[in-house]
């Protein structure tokens, strides 16, 4: 199938600035990875290793920027004080593994290979693989606008993935690891059971293949999106005001999702970056108070255990091995829950679901 293209002027884009992420990854590739691959006889993987280097650089910068902004915020306007921050330390490990370590490489390789296989097969059948730019050709010369549309679609898809993970008992058994944290900080964003991460990966794989998500061409935008997600978990008394909270998800908005009363299947505020999906689908709660976080039904191992014991506890909960005690504990703690500050929950928002 051919596409006749319009005038050249409509398809030409100005010259952007150099990309510091790409240059840093290039330096790592040239000076560290290629010499290593050459010595090991693995040069066939040199292009792939660059992909990992780029992800690792993005991840390291994300962690650094998030740390530089969120830590002062948490110290300036903290919501809670904890004498023992051991549980926070485990969340730091989750973040490092998720953003800088091997997971980005696996994700990148798997998505890339799946995209190559599916799109190549479709091309062979004479079909054009689906892309937003294919659907709306005017987007081809406007990469930033294109990316924003992709980001909004993915955010909406993430809203539904997240909401479904609370609706199904087996799925929430895994996702409860994310909610078990009673010392929620900006490090908690990546605290997930590995099977929950795997489901999320396949979810985004399907969506990404369906809409033809572009490769990592806009690192700054990706960085901003991931920063918002981390910030929304911060242990800080922060909202963006009446209008701001309805444009971008704030720590106050997302804290209600992590509140003890919202644990499990009766939750709210599922969105990751944009609150619009919660507003659109009736799950938004804009209460101006700050709830204590945690999931009493998750068990102590999930809340304060080591990385491995948390993962194991997630599997045990999935298998239904400690449901009775946990449900009893949840009921008793819900009965005694009170907001940390502000108005009572549920009054400022549309409704709890």
């Amino acid at each position: 199938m051919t596409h006749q293209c319009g005038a050249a002027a409509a398809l030409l884009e100005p010259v952007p600035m150099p990309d510091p992420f790409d240059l840093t990854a290039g330096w790592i590739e040239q000076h560290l990875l290629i010499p290593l691959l050459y010595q090991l006889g693995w040069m066939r993987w040199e292009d792939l290793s660059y992909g990992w280097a780029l992800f690792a650089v993005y991840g390291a910068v994300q962690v650094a920027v998030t740390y530089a902004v969120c830590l002062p915020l948490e110290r300036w306007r903290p919501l809670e004080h904890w004498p023992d921050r051991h549980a926070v330390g485990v969340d730091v490990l989750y973040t490092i593994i998720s953003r800088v370590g091997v997971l980005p490489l696996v994700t990148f390789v798997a998505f890339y290979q799946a995209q190559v296989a599916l799109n190549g097969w479709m091309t062979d059948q004479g079909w054009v693989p689906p892309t937003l730019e294919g659907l709306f050709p005017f987007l081809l010369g406007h990469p930033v606008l294109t990316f924003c549309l992709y980001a909004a679609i993915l955010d909406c898809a993430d809203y539904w993935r997240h909401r479904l993970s609370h609706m199904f008992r087996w799925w929430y058994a895994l996702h409860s690891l994310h909610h078990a944290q009673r010392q929620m900080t900006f490090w908690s964003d990546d605290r997930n059971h590995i099977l929950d991460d795997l489901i999320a990966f396949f979810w985004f794989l399907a969506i990404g293949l369906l809409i033809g998500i572009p490769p990592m061409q806009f690192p700054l935008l990706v960085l901003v999106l991931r920063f918002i997600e981390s910030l929304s978990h911060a242990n800080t008394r922060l909202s963006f005001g009446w209008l701001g909270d309805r444009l971008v998800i704030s720590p106050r908005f997302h804290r209600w999702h992590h509140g003890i009363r919202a644990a499990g299947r009766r939750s709210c505020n599922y969105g990751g970056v944009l609150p619009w999906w919660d507003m659109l689908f009736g799950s938004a709660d804009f209460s101006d108070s700050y709830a204590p976080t945690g999931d009493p039904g998750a068990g102590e191992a999930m809340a304060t255990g080591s990385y491995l014991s948390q993962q194991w506890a997630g599997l045990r909960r999935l298998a239904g091995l400690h449901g009775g005690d946990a449900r009893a504990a949840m009921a008793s703690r819900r009965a005694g829950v009170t907001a940390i500050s502000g108005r009572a929950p549920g009054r400022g928002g549309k409704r709890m679901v």
Partner: protein
Amino acid sequence: MRLAARLPLLCLLAALFAPPAAAAGLAFVVNSRSASVSLIDMTTLVELRRVPMLREPHHLVLSPDGKYLLVGDTVGNAMFFLDPSTGAVKQRLAVADPYQFGFSPNGKWLVVNGLARDQVDVYDAGTMKLVRRFPIASMPSHLAFSPDSSKVYVSLQGSNRLAAIDLTQLAVIWDVPVGSTPAGVLWNRGHVLVADMGADYVAEVDPADGKVINRIHTGSGAHQLFASPDGKQVYVNNRAGGTITMLDAASLATLRTYRVPGGPDDLAFAPDGTIWITCRFIEKIAVLNPTTGELHTVEVGRQPHGIFLNATAP
């Protein structure tokens, strides 16, 4: 306001609204990770603009009639047809995984290596219809034709082999090991040269059976091969070593080695004798004077890969 005070403003306005200086020659540089093609004025060495591609383009080649510059977008599964004088996109064709590709010397075939999909596709160059697909393991990367267009030689980066495809019978006639991670392929004076990226040499191969008859040491990570316009030299870029080796095409003796920063990849020869090189990891191309060894760099997009020079572009 006095005239003297207005002069800077007038100069600024004049600069803003003056027509751009006419380009004497255009360099096309494929930015793989930016999904674009940079257009560079070959006289002023200024990047003029970028032409957006779809996802991840790598190589480019001029059509036999010189009307189109074909740019292959691997992840986008698309072949873009650009006007080689202006960079305007004239046509886009759905092609599966076009990594490296080339037209046979007689202009009859377009052979496309699908590196990610382990396939070599042979298209009728006149109609762009797929004639035959060769599933072949693994990672077919670069190719070269015999001068009579009867054979195409394809390096298999993932399996350390070189394959020969007979284009008259449309059949693979041999597929043999030639070294570690073979990449660039070049026909040179009756033999096939293969750059072994996992080693530090170029293998000289007998085109009849694929037997390696000689190994020429160039530099670590020998990656791509190019014949000079007069055919007297062969240039080899060495990915891990960060060098380009100039070989005598007849004797294959090393004539000179140039140090080039940033992972030298593809290169092209300008009529003034300079060599234009994409530097994969530093978002630049380097313009090398092979006589003096002097280098001049120009900023381009992310991961520059293929390069083409049209010295006669207006």
